[in-house]
């Protein structure tokens, strides 16, 4: 039994890496994840990653922000202390629009970004779970869970054929841990 935990295929070109994914999938090798230095368009459908629902979250946060400030202003200027400004109505909706707009944007931005950080487990101080240090530089890395995926030589050969510039058999999942 080998001590390999993860097999990494390192590519130096995103298109070659995409062919590599195809090849692995044709051979029924499950892919754990792919790490790239830049977003690769079309990769999520290949790997079966569902479209992000962050847009819905953003919309809801926007609604919340707009409603919050509009209700507050209504309470301040209409309900709690209506002021007589030249006999004009206290419920002056056009004047409420700028702040309502600003808080809609504010809540959307913060709500959505915090949701994104939460869902993706990003926060200051989180230990980076890096499988290969060059994945944020110039390598496009396909990671394959070694457990159950045997024989490892076959996977190595598939990756080699697909054009990987380097293949690693890592004993540890994350090289970034001390």
């Amino acid at each position, binding site marked *: 039994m080998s001590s390999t935990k993860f097999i990494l295929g390192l590519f130096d070109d995103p298109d070659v890496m995409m062919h590599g994914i195809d090849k692995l999938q044709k051979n029924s090798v499950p892919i754990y994840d792919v*790490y*790239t230095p830049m977003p690769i368009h079309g990769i999520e459908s290949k790997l079966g990653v569902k479209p992000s629902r962050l847009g819905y979250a953003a919309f809801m946060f926007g609604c919340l922000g707009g409603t919050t400030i509009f209700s507050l202003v209504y309470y301040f200027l209409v309900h709690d202390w209506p002021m007589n400004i030249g006999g004009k109505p206290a419920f002056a909706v056009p004047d409420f629009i700028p702040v309502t707009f600003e808080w809609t944007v504010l809540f959307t931005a913060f709500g*959505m970004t915090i949701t994104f950080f939460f869902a993706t487990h990003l926060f200051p101080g989180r230990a980076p779970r890096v499988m290969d240090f060059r994945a944020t530089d110039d390598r496009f890395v396909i990671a394959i869970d070694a457990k159950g995926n045997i024989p490892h030589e076959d996977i190595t050969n598939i990756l080699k054929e697909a054009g990987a510039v380097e293949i690693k058999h890592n004993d540890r999942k994350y090289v970034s841990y001390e």
Partner: protein
Amino acid sequence: MASHNESIIREPLITGNDITYAKITNDVLKPVENMPTKAWWIGFAVASLAACLWVFAVSWTFWYGIGSWGLNKTVGWAWDITGFVWWVGIGHAGTLISAILLLFRQNWRNSINRSAEAMTIFAVICAATYIVAHMGRPWMAVYSLPFPNQYGSLWVNFNSPLIWDVFAISTYFSVSLVFWYTGLLPDMASIRDRATGIRRRIYSVLSFGWTGSVKTWQRFETVSLILAGISTPLVLSVHTIVSMDFATSLEPGWHTTIFPPYFVAGAIFSGFAMVQTLLLVLRKVLGLENYITMFHIESMNKIILVTGSIVGVAYLTEFFIAYYSGGEYEQYTFLNRFVGPYWWAGCMMYGCNVLMTQMMWFKKVRTNIPVSWVLSIVVNIGMWFERFVIIVVSLHRDFIPSSWAMFYPTWVDMSIFIGSIGVFFTLFLLFIRVAPSIAMAEVKLLLKSSSEQAKKKLIEGGHVDESHAEFYKESLTKFDSVELSQYEKA
């Protein structure tokens, strides 16, 4: 697919023959991973000295009060609000570049957005310090927020544009910060993975544990797109609201319905000028000529030309409406800009903003780096005078001639202004030392489609229409970072 061949007639966004993904990382991170150069130290020394002057002058203001400024009963707003509007205006280009150009799929934004966004944030910080300083008693800032209090509660007046401004500027600052920092995460991770020891620890915290997995990138792109979508109306709303500080008053020269679009165009105009001022120096000093190319410089000059012309049309409209309104006070105010005691300020405003930028119609001017740099400074000066003319020149001669007055700045006024420029440059210089000044991940996206080497391969492959290839080679002649000789023999 990750990449496809772009039309050959489009100019390249990355020049050079040996650009690889690794080289992009190395080039961009050179100033971050090495000790600063002499030029950086000189710049930083000058900027931080000016920043110290700012600290001193603002402390003086808080100790002795607003009376240490040159304000008087007639001119109650002068260099403070001029400086505020000037900085907010400058702060508009970053979000324009990162949001509006993203929505319009303008890929050339990729190599300038990061530093432009940083510039936005620092400019808005400078603007905010003006607001706090002009209160004289900065602890009174709390009264601009609707907190329950013992007076009733007496709430803030949401009918007032000044309160809208509090909400607009604070929202703009915090949303820009979120947009900028979220975009920085992948690049911070690049620094982290190349660093060792304490540096790795620091960038580990700063990068939030970014790994670049498929799901992270996919959500990251969704977040970027939605942030761009909401930042676009936001950036327009901010200067609209700033203009309403003036436009909703009854002051001749301020009471103008054209102010919102006029201020927004002016803001983008001055913001791009400041981006140009900084990037022309940055690309030279940091050796980023291959990423911030002549195409970028010319594109920015074109935007400066367009927005400058919009501002010019707005100026003409203002004059026409003053004439057409038949209001004698309105007419006097506009005439006074040329024949009054502040005629020189009016000349600086119209001359710098309208006449000088019209030179950008000539390609020779747009693609000449020293001339572009000087013109960008001219625009910055002109836009400062625009705010000075709108604020001080409109105020100094009001309805009662007996209260007419002039404004004379004191050393405190001047020190705060010079100092705020120092604060801005101190922050910017620190930024280029600790974070990548170019969005590496976004530039890497362009390497296979829009780079010079990719296009050269297309031509050499022979699948390109001969006339298109000639057109492309012709367009390369303006680039200062392209080796033209290699195209002649081909």
